[in-house]
């Protein structure tokens, strides 16, 4: 939805009030409700679908392949597709790049290793069916749910193939749950002196700036970076904003993790 100059000014004033007045009545640290389904794609090793209250929808599929990691040391491929954006657009490619970066950094490759030579390589395909606000946080929740519901074939051959060259052999039907700690990405909008978590599209339109914060292993991790939520209201912010953001994420993230783990 395109907002007029007056609407934007009104929204900006109410969002920068103390406490912020968000159009949907949320508190600054409150998320929009999401619906999350997992394990619905029969051909994937793990899958999830997330639907946000504004109608944004995202599907994530995780597939695995056995590779020789001494040859191919890339253990993760993230592919992002966003409806309404070209695949080679800056927006889609940079979201893909952020996700690849954060997952490669934070996921433990050891969890995917089968033998000394072979390991699983994960292909994470992200399809955003519709998005109204910045989809990064939504995608990250979906990836979290998908990876945590991923089951991989159970290895029955020996895990030491250094002495004897051997192909890994799997059990016919027994699966093993993938045990990885998946990082989460949070987006916050900075409006005036306020920090708003999970900005809706109209809030993003008037935001002065945005921040992406990573949460992994029960604490704030990297990358942390500024992200443009719109093109024409971008402004600088003080270092106090960063402090507030980090405090807010530290408070909210454990609850989000708890909620996502409850599925």
């Amino acid at each position, binding site marked *: 939805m395109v907002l007029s100059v007056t609407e934007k000014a009104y929204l900006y004033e109410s969002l920068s009030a103390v406490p912020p007045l968000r159009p949907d009545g949320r508190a600054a640290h409150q998320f929009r409700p999401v619906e999350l389904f997992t394990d619905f794609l029969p051909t994937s090793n793990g899958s999830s679908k997330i639907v946000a209250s504004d109608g944004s929808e995202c599907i994530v599929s995780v597939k695995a392949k056995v590779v020789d990691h001494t040859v191919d040391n890339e253990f993760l491929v993230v592919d992002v597709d966003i409806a309404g954006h070209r695949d080679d657009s*800056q927006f889609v490619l940079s979201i893909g790049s952020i996700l690849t970066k954060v997952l490669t950094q934070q996921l433990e490759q050891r969890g995917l290793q089968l033998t000394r030579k072979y390991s699983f390589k994960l292909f994470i395909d992200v399809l955003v069916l519709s998005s109204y606000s910045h989809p990064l946080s939504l995608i990250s929740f979906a990836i979290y749910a998908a990876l945590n519901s991923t089951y991989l074939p159970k290895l029955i051959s020996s895990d030491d193939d250094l*002495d004897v060259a051997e*192909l890994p052999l799997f059990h016919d039907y027994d699966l093993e749950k993938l045990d990885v700690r998946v990082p989460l990405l949070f987006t916050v909008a900075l409006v005036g002196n306020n920090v708003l978590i999970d900005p809706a599209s109209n809030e993003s339109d008037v935001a002065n*700036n945005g*921040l992406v914060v990573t949460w992994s292993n029960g604490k704030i991790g*990297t990358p942390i970076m500024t*992200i443009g939520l719109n093109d024409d209201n*971008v402004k600088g*912010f003080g270092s106090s904003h960063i402090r507030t953001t980090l405090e807010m994420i530290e408070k909210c993230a454990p609850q989000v993790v708890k909620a996502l783990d409850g599925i």
Partner: protein
Amino acid sequence: MSVSDRRRILGPTNARPIQFAPLNEDSKKIDTERKNLNKSVFIENGLVSNSNGSSYLETRDSNGIEYPTLLLTSVYGPRPTRGSFNSKASLTIQFKEVTAENFPTGELKELCNFLTNIFNAVINLAGYPKSGIDIFLNLIQHEGPSGEYSREAILPTCINGITLALVDAGIEIFDMVSAGSYNGTVVSFTKNGEEIVGLWKDTGDVEDLVETIEKCKEQYYQNRSTMIKYLMQNKK
């Protein structure tokens, strides 16, 4: 799943993969120290004659010529855009490696996205309705310390380069935006360090973020004053 190579001689069964001894702590320390050292910069504006404004930057360590970063930035526009009416200019930033391609495309697009966000905040976009401003970054040479290619190492140079090119083009900017980097964190400031317009932290610890920002600010002051000195000496 491919079949394993049975024609290959696998070697003796008790063979172990080759391993190198870890670097000793002292040499590592010097390396990080050198990373955070003051850099010497060479600036030349207006080299690209058919662009509206351009800048050429050479950043190298003050103690030698080991790791120079050469960056050429050119600014085109404001020029008309087609399509719907825009009361503000739209900004495009493109990054290209001229000599060798060391970065994957996605990473470069992310870098451009980040830079666009910074400069959306400082260019007086409202002064250029119905237009587009195009910025092209050409990385001629870059080699990080110990030969690795990191975006953090070139980011401050990119930001300084764009600022200088915009000034050269005479496009209105609210401040001389610049950046400093410390241990892989890049922070870009305006308004004499009061405001942050860009924060890029890919690795490292978050605990000392505030301290890191302060360190970056020191470098920002240096970079900014160097640029201003260059511009003012040429104008008077």
